[in-house]
């Protein structure tokens, strides 16, 4: 195993994030604060508690998931897209690094950044609403699994994309709607049929639900199902990446 190689990629990616530390932190923290002021304060004060949890607290897990997904996809996709764009990918392709080592380096760095960001948003939330985490172990597990799964997805996106437009298009067209419709700001039980059933095809529902369960002990779907779907998504992304490297698709001529 080329541990030096993995470490080199990981450090390179972390250094890249540190160079833009302020942009990558200020944006999400500011957005989260705005959500709290609007949804938690202005609108939330007129809303009923959901499942016995005040609306402001109720949206915390969903808000974290929203940033986690966007950031994971964004970081991991640009991480592998940029070398393709500048041509420096030649070095990665010619190095004694296996596809999985490459993935561990890139996705590991993107996921690390997402987890840190998730925790920072959690801390920010604590300024606005009371927060208690019922199952801290499960919360950390969901944070990790989600970050890894969506960083893997972002990695695939970065390999697939042929332009910066495509790179921005997918998060905008896929990730944002799925998160907004994934129960970040509501319980899907609040939806009328058939939308409740339709929602069950949205994988984000399971992420948010599981994450919310780790906070409040209650979610839209069973915690085991949440965990299963999250793991399933992660494994599916890994399988796609394995296929990509086997065929050299969009990486090699």
């Amino acid at each position, binding site marked *: 195993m080329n541990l*030096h*190689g993995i470490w080199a*990629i990981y450090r390179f990616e972390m250094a890249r994030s540190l160079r833009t530390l302020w942009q990558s932190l200020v944006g999400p923290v500011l957005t989260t604060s705005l959500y709290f002021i609007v949804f938690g304060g202005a609108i939330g004060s007129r809303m009923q508690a959901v499942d016995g949890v005040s609306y402001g607290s109720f949206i915390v897990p969903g808000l974290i998931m929203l940033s986690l997904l966007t950031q994971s996809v964004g970081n991991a996709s640009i991480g592998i897209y940029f070398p393709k764009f*500048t041509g*420096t990918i030649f*070095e990665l392709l010619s*190095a*004694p690094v296996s596809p999985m080592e490459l993935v561990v380096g890139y996705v590991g760095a993107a996921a690390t950044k997402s987890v840190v960001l998730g925790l920072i948003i959690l801390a920010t939330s604590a300024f606005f609403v009371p927060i208690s985490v019922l199952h801290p172990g499960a919360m950390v597990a969901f944070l990790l699994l989600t970050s890894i799964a969506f960083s893997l997805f972002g990695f695939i996106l970065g390999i697939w994309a042929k332009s910066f437009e495509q790179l921005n298009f997918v998060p905008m067209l896929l990730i944002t709607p799925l998160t907004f419709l994934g129960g970040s700001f509501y319980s899907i039980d609040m939806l009328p049929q058939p939308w409740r059933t339709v929602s069950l095809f949205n994988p984000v529902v399971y992420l948010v639900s599981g994450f919310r369960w780790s906070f409040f002990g209650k979610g839209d779907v069973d915690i085991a199902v949440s965990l299963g779907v999250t793991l399933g998504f992660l494994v599916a992304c890994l399988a796609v990446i394995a296929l990509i490297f086997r065929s050299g698709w969009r990486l090699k*001529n």
Partner: protein
Amino acid sequence: MPEPILAVTGVSKTYKGGFTALHSVDLTIHKGEIFALLGPNGAGKTTLISIICGIVTPSTGTILVAGHDALTDYKAARRRIGLVPQELSVDMFETVLATVTFSRRLFGRSGDSAYIEQVLRDLSLWDKRDAKIMELSGGMKRRVLIAKALAHEPEILFLDEPTAGVDVALRRDMWKLVHRLRERGTTIILTTHYIEEAEEMADRVGVISKGRLLLVDDKAALMQKLGKRELDLTLVDPLDAVPVGLERWRLSLLNEGRTLRYVFDATDEHTGIPSLLRELADRHIAFKDLETSKSSLEDIFVDLVEERA
């Protein structure tokens, strides 16, 4: 026989569009030699190097690097190879030292600051080690790419068109470095489309054109083959045909009979020029100008291809 460090067998490449850039290339490189791959633009030099280095997938064929298959045992193969690409592809936001250290680690080695310092000093980059790459000139960027390729102490170094767009100082430094590397036992494979460069640098030369390796030979032997020259005489009175009795010389008429061309071999002991000029004087064929030139690389390739056909 010297020990082979690289063996390319039956390697061909057809790109997705259907264009065949390489037709079944066989090539053996000996340990410690400097090998020049000589060919015009589009001959397939970069394609061949990219396949050996793992950047392009071959359509057919096998590659052994010090006995390790470049596809199935790619880690062992690639650890031994360093590549300086034709394009200036390097991370603009990194510092020189950071990017060279990155390369060393990426190729599986722990950061050895003494070795990296030596490489940077050899390439006159040490003073610039903390500079961001985007602040460097084109020549300096190429030096950085060379340093990156050498960072993991490769046994084989590929230099793809190393002198294209490079200033004199860098050229000189580069050749010095190449010779120093060779003394340490590094095998060097470079591509070029200048005969002079191959002549100056290499122990052996392979000529590639239109995806085919036409011949591989020791430099001296090849230069003899490539040593054809042309003598052009601008005639005072145009001729209709090459005069009878001058068949001994390889003559042809150009420019509607105004130029008489003699193709000769500069490496021959007797070029035949004095006798030709005497013969022309005897026949009162006058000329007002004369000029000799090396056959262009294109001409030589055409000759080689025709010889093969």
